[in-house]
């Protein structure tokens, strides 16, 4: 049962991920990306990681993708007004994507089989996850928070009205 569900979700995830790339309309791309996120949500649930699953939905599908849609709707891109990308840019994009894939495959190749089979564990529950995060993995956790804080401060600095450079008419 779980296996079939896994195959179904993976198929749907890959299909919608491909549609993100291939669909002409950027708004459709974002909608396909949201479907992909829901498939990944299903995968997390299959691995008994409820907290990660729901946070994934709240953060990615519920906030980030809404902002993506927001910007795309404001720009209202269509095939006529969309800026044409030159071939060099496409070439660079394809190569960097391939490099990323090499890195991911290299990282996942060496993983232990035991970790994959251990799906019945309760590590995904909030209580266990919180304990692990604030004891064993405290340093990475804090570093990530500082990284996020820095990104937030940076966003505020960029978004701030620069009153001395532009003079209002």
């Amino acid at each position, binding site marked *: 049962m779980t296996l079939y569900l896994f195959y179904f979700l993976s198929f749907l995830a890959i299909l919608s991920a491909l549609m993100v790339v291939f669909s002409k309309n950027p708004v459709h791309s974002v*909608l396909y990306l949201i479907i992909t996120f829901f498939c990944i949500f299903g995968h997390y649930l299959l691995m008994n990681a409820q907290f990660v699953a729901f946070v994934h939905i*709240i953060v990615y599908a*519920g906030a980030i993708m809404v902002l993506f*849609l*927001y910007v795309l709707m404001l720009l209202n891109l269509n095939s006529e007004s969309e800026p044409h990308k030159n071939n060099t840019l496409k070439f660079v994009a394809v190569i960097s994507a391939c490099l990323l894939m090499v890195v991911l495959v290299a990282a996942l190749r060496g993983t232990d089989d035991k970790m994959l089979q251990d799906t019945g564990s309760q590590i995904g529950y*909030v209580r266990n996850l919180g304990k692990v995060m604030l004891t064993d993995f405290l340093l990475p956790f804090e570093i990530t928070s500082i990284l996020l804080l820095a990104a937030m401060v940076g966003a505020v600095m960029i978004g701030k009205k620069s009153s001395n450079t532009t003079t209002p008419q």
Partner: protein
Amino acid sequence: MTDFLIYKILLVVGVFTITLVVAMYATYGERKVAAFLQDRIGPNRAGPFGILQPLADGLKFFMKEEIIPSVSNKFLFILGPSIAMITALMAGVLIPWGNTLIINGTAYSLQITDINIGILYVFGVVSIGVYGIMIGGWASNNKYSLLGAIRASAQMISYELAMGISIIALIMMTGTLSLGEIVNQQAGGDWNFWNVVYQPLGFLIFIVCAFAECNRAPFDLPECETELVGGYHTEYSSMKLGFYMFAEYINMFISSAVLSTLYFGGYNFPFMNDLGLSHNAITILGTVFLFAKIFFFIFFFMWVRWTLPRFRYDQLMNLGWRVLLPLSIANLLLTALVLLWIDK
């Protein structure tokens, strides 16, 4: 196992029906409350006191001509109201509608399921809900609809932050994410008060955000008729428009239920253990009390709508980011400090 399954299916169907009926009569209630506040009579033709008015309205929605603009994306145009409706109905699964009923020695809980991350589920469903408005508004291919959709998304994201942080303060106090446990912790007697006593500021922030998340006045900018014709549902007609309106009333019902559950003790009521009634009687009485609380909050939603004028969009953003967010963070810090102090 089959008993369990049948019971759960019955419960799901029951909650579904009750949600729809309450939403239906909320439209009637809204018109009656508006009439009362404006010194009118309100609907009084269909049946005694106009009690059949929602049925007539529903029939009218089904009978109206359905128009899909030829330039719009048909699939997304239909998907919009469907998502709005589905997400509105999904949150009811986790609300504890009552304590357990004991029949033939087996305890049946009146909550459909109590997953241990209940609040996150509710929050996730709320954050998905905005897609119904965004997709519908975009697919209409109308600038008023698009503006309404964009307003809705910006508003939802801004108010979700303050709402989330006010809930975190509550979670720190209760120490659990499960709605069932949060209600049980507020159960009767011995100076054990409802959460609103310990979290008055959090409650205030939460209810203001609930107004914004439901797109209710004074925050109904996405459908502001003075500026945007009908907002995101300008192009919608017939039952698809009905779905959007219905989804709004269901959201109101669900957020009233969440408010009562988190801050007003859910199905608990004062002196419930001193009455000397049987367990089942207390459970039924508790459910009645829960619905009384929910109906009060629905009335409160309507009361505010017909009392306060609509905010301007910059006022809305200022309130969200410069007032509610700092207040909720202050509330969070205060709660954390008090909890630390009590712990020592």
